């Protein structure tokens, strides 16, 4: 008897993620944009927006001119990864063998072997899996079939659970699937449309050798997958259950050094447990249970997954050195987030003089000492207002530098996090101490017209003592503000 495979298909995952985050948008046309900017491109549109002729690739400002009711927001890669992890965890509760599809973010492959008798029938099991999607406020289909991509082709356009009786039924239903729903590469889809091939059955009727010859190896691979000629083995995602160890303190204690030794003992036991499972420590959560006080929780992440207790205990020492616990600690609970050991080949001849791993370790120490958001890299953004032109993003590593080769220098400004109001005289000019001897400008900056318009006239003011101030006059109030200075 041929093995079965189940496909969970959640179409337009970013759109569904957005709908979950903004329940009030469900009755309005909405779209996913690449960034929160008026000129950002639209990446996904819901059926209401599509009916208004708002298309993928259009600028948000253009789409807004079609419908003022359009709602839009960006969806980050991290958000999608988090949702996929949530779906995976939910599906793993229904079957131990779940493989997230590497190419399609909304597709998961499930092994239903042995679950029919356990649930009564495969229909009941598939309905149970479909119920898991509903619980997560997601719309999608569950199809229990015989081959991967044919089952997925059947699932496209459905939002229920279906168990196929035979491989022939699967092939027949899959053959009816429209190619526009199968996420084929645009060039292949256009070429097939030119050949008047619009359904999967038409595509599969073409000789595979000819497909490979005319449209390339990727088209040939897709042909083989949809034709069930290529059967990749199931590669289920591993279970990464947290491992917890706790230590009682009798009598309760609040001395940082003694707590550190207590943690150290527990950490060695934790590392031994991780070693027995061939795993490493990706993150450590420390929970201090206090006398008559709420628990105090700290979260630490080493530079990379490790089994080196010494480096982790150093991070713990840095973190708890400045922690003020409100009461004595009764119990310490260590929860390890495991990961596969990142075995890397040692490099005999490094290309860089400085060790990037040492940099990552020092960054992990800084994050432990000052908190995760304290170590950042600066990112320059395309914006008009100076305070919107950059952002700091937390980082765990530093790249090998690639500075621009130019030999020209540039003076650098310092910008105040909050502009300071500057008084002005009767002539309307700003008054400083020492006084300004020269005022140059204005250079008008305008931004935020799609939300709250900001208009500023920027000036450079040279004070009598030589300081070069960067000032602006607010367009709405006429007030002067010091925004920074050249240094």
């Amino acid at each position, binding site marked *: 008897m041929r093995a079965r495979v189940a496909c969970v298909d959640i179409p337009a995952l970013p759109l569904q993620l957005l709908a979950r985050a903004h329940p009030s948008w469900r009755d309005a046309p909405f779209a996913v944009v690449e960034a929160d900017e008026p000129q950002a491109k639209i990446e996904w549109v819901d059926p209401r927006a599509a009916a208004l002729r708002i298309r993928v690739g259009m600028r948000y400002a253009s789409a807004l001119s079609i419908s003022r009711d359009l709602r839009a927001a960006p969806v980050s890669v991290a958000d999608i990864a988090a949702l996929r992890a949530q779906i995976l965890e939910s599906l793993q509760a229904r079957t131990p063998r779940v493989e997230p599809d590497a190419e399609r973010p909304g597709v998961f492959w499930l092994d239903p072997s042995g679950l029919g008798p356990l649930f009564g029938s495969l229909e009941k099991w598939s309905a149970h899996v479909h119920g898991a999607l509903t619980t997560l406020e997601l719309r999608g289909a569950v199809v229990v079939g015989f081959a991967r991509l044919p089952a997925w082709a059947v699932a496209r356009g459905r939002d229920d659970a279906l168990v196929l009786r035979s491989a022939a039924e699967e092939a027949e239903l899959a053959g009816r699937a429209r190619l526009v729903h199968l996420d084929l590469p645009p060039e292949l889809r256009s070429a097939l449309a030119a050949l008047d091939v619009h359904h999967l059955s038409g595509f599969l009727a073409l000789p595979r050798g000819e497909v490979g010859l005319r449209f390339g190896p990727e088209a040939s691979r897709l042909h083989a997958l949809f034709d069930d000629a290529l059967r990749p083995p199931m590669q289920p995602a591993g279970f990464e259950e947290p491992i917890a160890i706790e230590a009682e303190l009798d009598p309760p204690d609040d001395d940082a050094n003694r707590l550190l030794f207590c943690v150290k003992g527990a950490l060695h036991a934790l590392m031994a447990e991780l070693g027995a499972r061939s795993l490493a420590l990706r993150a450590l959560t420390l929970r201090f249970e206090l006398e008559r006080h709420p628990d105090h929780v700290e979260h630490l992440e080493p530079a990379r997954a490790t089994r080196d207790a010494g480096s982790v205990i150093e991070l713990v020492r840095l973190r708890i050195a*400045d922690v003020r616990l409100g009461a004595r600690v009764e119990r310490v609970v260590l929860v390890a987030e495991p990961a596969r050991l990142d075995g890397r080949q040692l490099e005999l001849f490094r290309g*860089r*003089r*400085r*060790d*990037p791993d*040492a*940099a990552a*370790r*020092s960054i992990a*120490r*800084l994050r432990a*000492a*000052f*908190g995760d*958001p*304290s*170590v*950042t*890299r*600066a*990112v*320059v953004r395309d914006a008009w207002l*100076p305070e919107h*032109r*950059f952002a*700091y993003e937390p*980082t765990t590593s*530093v*790249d*090998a*530098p*690639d*500075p*621009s*080769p*130019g030999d*020209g*220098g*540039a*003076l*650098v*400004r*310092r*910008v*105040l*996090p909050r502009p300071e109001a500057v008084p002005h005289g009767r002539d309307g000019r700003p008054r400083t101490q020492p006084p300004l001897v020269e005022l*140059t*400008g204005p*250079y008008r900056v305008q931004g935020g017209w799609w939300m709250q318009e900001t208009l500023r006239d*920027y000036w*450079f003011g040279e004070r009598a*003592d*030589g*300081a*070069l101030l*960067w000032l602006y006059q607010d367009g709405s109030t006429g007030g002067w503000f010091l925004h*920074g200075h*050249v*240094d």
Partner: protein
Amino acid sequence: MAVRALPLRVPFAGPLSGGLVRALDLPDRARKGLPPGLLVELSRGPGAAATTAAVQIVLASQRAGDPAAWIQPEGGTLYPPDLAAAGVDLDGLIVVHVPPRAGRAGLPKAAELLLRSGAFGAIVVDVEGQAPPRGGAWLGRLGSLAREHACRCVFLTAPSEGSLGPLISLRLRAARRRVRPGRFVLETEVLKDKSGAHPTLPGPALHLGPAGLP
């Protein structure tokens, strides 16, 4: 050019000597930059260009293939778009924001953790407005780590705060001077030089002002 280079380096000569050298007058060969392993103090103030000078040190480190770090108190005034305009690769620069709860030891502690790794070619510590720890032990530790790992550790201080301590190898004041519209040179005044290496600030002779600055 080589004949002119020697007399022009005279104001730098000798430890504890002061003098004023115009970077524009230095031939390219004389502008060797700062040797690694130094604790450098750059004084800020009206008319100064300490941040610009520090950025040039970061840039020199990156051009040598070494990443750099910038340490400032939380809510600091660094303006990354100007660093990018000066040529700094922002992916090769980490910016550390030390929270107020870390106290007066926070900035040196961050510098020490980074220096100890030996993974950075330049570390800039913006100590303006932050009282440093008492005593000079922290400077001694940073100095020995900077020497061990061939790292340039630069402190940006306000002129009113005075020097951080006697263990600073080199104390400079970089001032900008307009030579023609939109073009500036950095003039470096050596307030203290214990290195004996006659160091100079790295970077080009001419600097452009930000857009709109005449």
